[in-house]
């Protein structure tokens, strides 16, 4: 059985080999590199800016800036996230107002049509639809609450939650990305989650 550490080590080696190709200017390797990191970078940008369009632009700029600086990069992952974070900070400081993401999709409608096609008892169908709708509504409601609460957090709290909780980075990695001491990473994370919890409680 392959341990988590072995997998992480393999993954790190793979990323390092890929980055060497990126460093040499191989654009195909760069495409793969972007695919590997795009979600992390975009997630951080979205958390900080709250607007998918601006977050996408910031993520794109971060990759371009990273590529320009590839010859002096030693830790590509943390460096890339740091660039993205700094670009978002610049965007925030420029006074850009964030736009709330709607997060709506048409999943619900498709679900109902599929259910109607596959079931025969009309009462069962209606009950299932009712349950689905309630669950979907509750999910959507919580999603909007979370989105609003995240936006009320300071940028320092947003980024620490994203980097450690959502992206699963270690405290050491987070310290490298944010360039703050390890102890600060830990205390900031706990304060950020307590603050987020309080905002959510106030909202409900």
């Amino acid at each position: 059985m392959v341990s988590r550490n072995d997998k992480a080590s393999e993954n790190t080696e793979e990323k390092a080999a890929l980055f060497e190709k990126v460093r040499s200017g191989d654009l195909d390797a760069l495409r793969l590199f972007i695919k590997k990191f795009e979600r992390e970078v975009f997630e951080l940008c979205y958390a900080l800016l709250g607007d998918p369009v601006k977050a996408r632009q910031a993520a794109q700029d971060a990759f371009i800036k990273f590529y320009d600086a590839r010859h002096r990069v030693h830790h590509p992952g943390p460096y890339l996230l740091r660039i993205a974070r700094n670009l978002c900070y610049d965007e925030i400081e420029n006074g850009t107002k964030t736009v709330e993401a709607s997060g709506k999709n048409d999943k619900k409608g498709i679900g109902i049509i599929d259910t109607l096609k596959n079931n025969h008892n009309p009462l069962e169908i209606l009950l299932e639809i009712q349950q689905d709708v309630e669950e979907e509504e509750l999910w959507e409601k919580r999603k909007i609450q979370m989105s609003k609460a995240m936006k009320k957090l300071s940028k320092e709290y947003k980024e620490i939650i994203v980097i450690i909780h959502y992206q699963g980075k270690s405290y050491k990695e987070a310290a490298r990305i944010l360039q703050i001491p390890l102890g600060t990473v830990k205390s900031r994370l706990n304060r950020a989650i307590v603050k987020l919890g309080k905002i959510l409680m106030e909202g409900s």
Partner: protein
Amino acid sequence: MDCHEIEMQLYDLATDRLTDEERRSVERHLDACTVCTEKLAIIRETLPLLEHWSPPELPPDFADQVIRGIKLRQDPWWRKVGQALFSPWYIKIPLEGLAATAVLLVFIAYQSGYLFITDTTTREITVTVKGEDAPQPIVMESPDLEDARLKLTAMVKEHGGMVVRRQPVGSDLKMVLKIAQENETPFLQALGRLGKTTAPPEHYKDSQGNIVIILKKK
């Protein structure tokens, strides 16, 4: 441990990342501290709600958009040409210097007439015209070159000389003959018997003192 140290470990406690010893130590503090206990309760209530936050999906061609952006920012054409010609300068400039010198030398050689001369007759004429000591050979005309050569060879032997070299020059035959000085005059007089002969008053000898005769087909 004080509240600050405990606060740093609440997330780890709530997500079960502490060792048994660390967990016991934090729990001991929590038994006696309502502030930290309250914070832990908030963290435990908040963690499940975090799954309700997620960014929207990126477009599938996001990587391609970035690559396009990079290509647009890349160097202009004149810089690419400059790099192709001179980078790295310590390799390309010496190589280009050598190539330029070689081209220059070929050009000079061509202009001087040392290149592309395949006709030996032309070369002979060129040398004759340019060299001060070059022979102006005696020209003999004969309808049968082989017959003339045999007769000439016999005559050389009669005068105690020898044929040093014979060399076809185009359709003619060049004969280089060594004749003793005292026999030279009778030999030249005897040449008239072989056919029409033009003998220039001087320069019919080469630098080694050999008589040069060109047998021409009539």
